[in-house]
């Protein structure tokens, strides 16, 4: 009897917790995309979020009161923004606008406006790093312009903008002209004195599309991710173009495939390249420091305009030419780092790994030393094959 009574009491105790932290799915305001800008009206922040529209797909995107609302095409998400003195203040201010509980667990892309990036994103990093709900695996992108303006753009293929951005980010290895680090990588590089952090760059592209052949042309705006935002400490220092980003990716050993267009007499040959190995080494004892980059890449001919047959001597010549071009490409990125006086390639950490004592000496005046740094680039390129044919189609 007693045991039964005790068991009953324990069972009756269970619902007493009242399921206190349970949230039914339909009461959830799921934040999918987070954008942070400076407050245009004051010195605080403006936070813009995409919240999943539960009625999704059918209802037109109702306007968020403070955020200027979503455009017609965004139907699966609502765009809301709120201002506040600090980031937590701003995100709290969002709560008044949406029924249900905000959940930032599923934010996987964080956008930062250019103004804010130039001002310094230390408070943003602190917020993102400190918050339990933000995943450090989310991607960090800096917008050319404001984050809010980018978030009002309609996705072209996917249902929601964040899905589209994620798709763009995950396929970056296909062309190497963009690179987007995860939040964790940014924070790690930020706290490392030997390397400066970078973030992805998102730009707005406006192009004209004829909706129907006879109808008037229409302007379409879309977000594309290309290039790189280079930071010095927590402030945006400048941008890298797509081509420079290829150099960056190859130099830090995260290169994907790329297409190299080699001019050949009057014609152009495109070669698809992929890196095999890349080694950035500090030449021991050199002062000012010199670095040696040895890159090995392989590739294949994709297409060419002209009328030649690939013969072994010609291929050898082509290999040498492509290796030279690749070397130039890398050198341009190195030049850019020197020009910006920002060590986003991580030269400093290379020295600190290979010669910690030397790095202790160089660390304090590294920025001044940077423009004197020399880099030797050695590229080894092998052309694997010329596709499935050797000679072009002829009549």
């Amino acid at each position, binding site marked *: 009897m007693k045991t039964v009574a005790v068991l009953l009491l324990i069972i009756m105790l*269970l*619902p007493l*917790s009242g*399921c206190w*932290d*349970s*949230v*039914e*799915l*339909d009461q*959830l305001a*799921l934040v*999918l995309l987070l954008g942070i800008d400076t407050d245009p009206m004051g010195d605080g922040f403006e936070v813009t979020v995409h919240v*999943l529209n*539960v*009625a*999704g*797909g059918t209802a037109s995107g109702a306007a968020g009161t403070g955020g200027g609302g979503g455009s017609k095409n965004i139907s*699966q998400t609502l765009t809301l923004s709120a201002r506040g003195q600090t980031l937590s203040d701003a995100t709290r201010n969002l709560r008044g606008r949406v029924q249900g509980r905000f*959940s930032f*667990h*599923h934010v*996987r892309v964080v956008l930062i406006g250019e103004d804010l990036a130039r001002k310094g994103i230390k408070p943003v990093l602190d917020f993102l790093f400190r918050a339990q*709900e933000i995943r450090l695996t989310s991607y960090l992108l800096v917008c050319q312009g404001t984050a809010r303006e980018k978030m009002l753009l309609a996705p072209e293929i996917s249902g*929601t903008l964040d*899905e589209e951005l994620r798709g763009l980010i995950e396929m970056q290895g296909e062309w190497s002209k963009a690179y987007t680090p995860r939040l964790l990588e940014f924070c790690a590089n930020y706290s490392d004195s030997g390397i400066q952090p970078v973030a992805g760059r998102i730009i707005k592209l406006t192009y004209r599309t004829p909706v129907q052949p006879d109808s008037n042309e229409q302007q379409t705006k879309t977000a594309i991710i290309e290039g790189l935002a280079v930071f010095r400490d927590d402030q945006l220092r400048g941008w890298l173009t797509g081509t420079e980003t290829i150099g960056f990716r190859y130099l830090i050993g995260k290169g994907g495939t790329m297409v190299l267009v080699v001019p050949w007499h009057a014609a152009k040959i495109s070669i698809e390249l992929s890196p095999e190995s890349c080694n950035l080494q500090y030449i021991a004892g050199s002062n000012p420091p010199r670095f040696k980059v040895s890159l090995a890449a392989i590739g294949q001919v994709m297409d060419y305009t002209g009328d030649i047959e690939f013969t072994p001597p010609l291929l050898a010549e082509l290999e040498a030419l492509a290796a030279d071009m690749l070397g130039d490409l890398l050198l341009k990125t190195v030049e850019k780092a020197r020009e910006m006086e920002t060590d986003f390639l991580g030269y400093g950490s290379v020295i600190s790994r290979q010669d910690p004592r030397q790095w202790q000496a160089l660390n304090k005046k590294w920025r001044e030393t940077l423009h004197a740094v020399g880099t030797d680039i050695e590229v080894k390129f092998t052309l694997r094959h010329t596709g499935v044919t050797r000679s072009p189609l002829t009549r």
Partner: protein
Amino acid sequence: MRTARKPRKALKLWEKKAQELEKQVQDQQSPLSDDFQANCAMIDAVFQGCDDISKRDFHIAQDPPRPARLYMLKGTLDKTIINDSIIAPLTAAVKARGAGVPDLISAHMLTEVATLGEAVQEVLNGQVLLIIHRQARAWSVNAKAARLRAVAEPETQKVVRGPREGLIEDLETNLTLVRKRLKTPTLKIDCRSVGRRSNTQLAILHLEGVADPKVLAEVHSRLNKIDIDGIMDSGELEQLIEDNTMTVFPQVGNTERPDNIAAALLNGRVAILVDNSPFALIVPNVLTDMLQSSDDYYERFQFSSLIRILRYVLAFVALLSPALYVAITTFHHEMIPTDLLTNLVRARAGVPFPTVIEAGLMELAFEALREAGLRLPKAVGQAVSIVGALIIGQAAVEAGLVSPIMVIVVAATGIASFTIPAFNGAVVTRMLKFPFLVAAGTLGLYGISLALAIIIIHLTSLRSFGVPYLSPLAPITISDWKDLIVRIPTWAMYQRPTFIAKGDLQRQSKSTAGIQPQKMK
């Protein structure tokens, strides 16, 4: 404590009655006298009011003719045997003085009966009882007619490959089916009866030198302690001899398949067959036995192992999927991949109940359908299942009562529970999923792990006839893992399970086991 006193009074009353009955039986144990009239009068008195007992008087053709009488049960007998093998030879002109009754009766089974009680019992068991003038004994002749259900394919434990024979409701036939598979004198069959009024025959089977004598002794001692009026099925017997009643986990296995029984005996288990029941009991039975099917051994080992792993996974699906769904969607949204979560959120929009209630309702509805499908006559059953499937599957979703994903979860639970080969094992998951649901709904994943911990602790406390219920997992015996989660090739299973068998552990000689994997040259 008033409640405790009442049954004690009732117990006393019951005891009194039992004593009376015992006395009657003792009276019946009085030996038969050589007075023919007195014997007949006694038996007639016993069978007063039993109209299904018929008798036949005749005279044995001796000089002088001796009166004799047959007692038999109507309807169970083969008339030709009675006519040609009992009555005909006895009434024929047999003058030979020296010839005794056994020499005259040409039936294949003839036993002498000395007491009244035995005589009565023999008649009730369907034998023909012969009482002869001036004999202080009677003879019971087996003249049973085969009036049995044919040996057919088992209904519950179906296999793709393997024998199609299943046990039937007749003990003797069942014993034959087992003996057919184990033609060895070491297969010992101990027959006895249980039930004061039902006198149900049962047989305890074991392989001498393989079965653990301790388990066997335990089986005997538990069966000896049974004092009940009647037993209708082995299921009742199971509940009388199991180690722990207050648990959802069955500690006695059952099977409808004679090949299962034989295999279990070879593994050193003890089988109990009960007359009138097509289900044999097998002890000891441990937790993992419920996830094993006999065609695991008949199919090749790769496939069997794969299916076994699948069963283990699905057992957890059957047990936990509604609970996990509830816990994750109401407490741990961050665990769900974003794209899936957005779908889930949309699917749940507008469902009026909390997820726990929704899951509970759906599971209840599914259980109701299942029970209804079981009870309904075959012709109606199909209609019910169609209506049920439509109601659960579509109408409930369209009416906005449940989300479509919940339907998938419930369906997954249902299908998974059907993959558990032992019905008594599947029942465990069906029962336990509800407490898990409550734990998940109140405490989330923490609650589920808490409930799992409680169940594992409970499982470690269980034993089946002295064998720990979690063996060979705990206490761990690695050598017995050859036939646990995977089933290793047959040639490599040269040993019986060591946690069950005692004595002769060798199934194959090791040399054979070594030869098998050699490559052809």
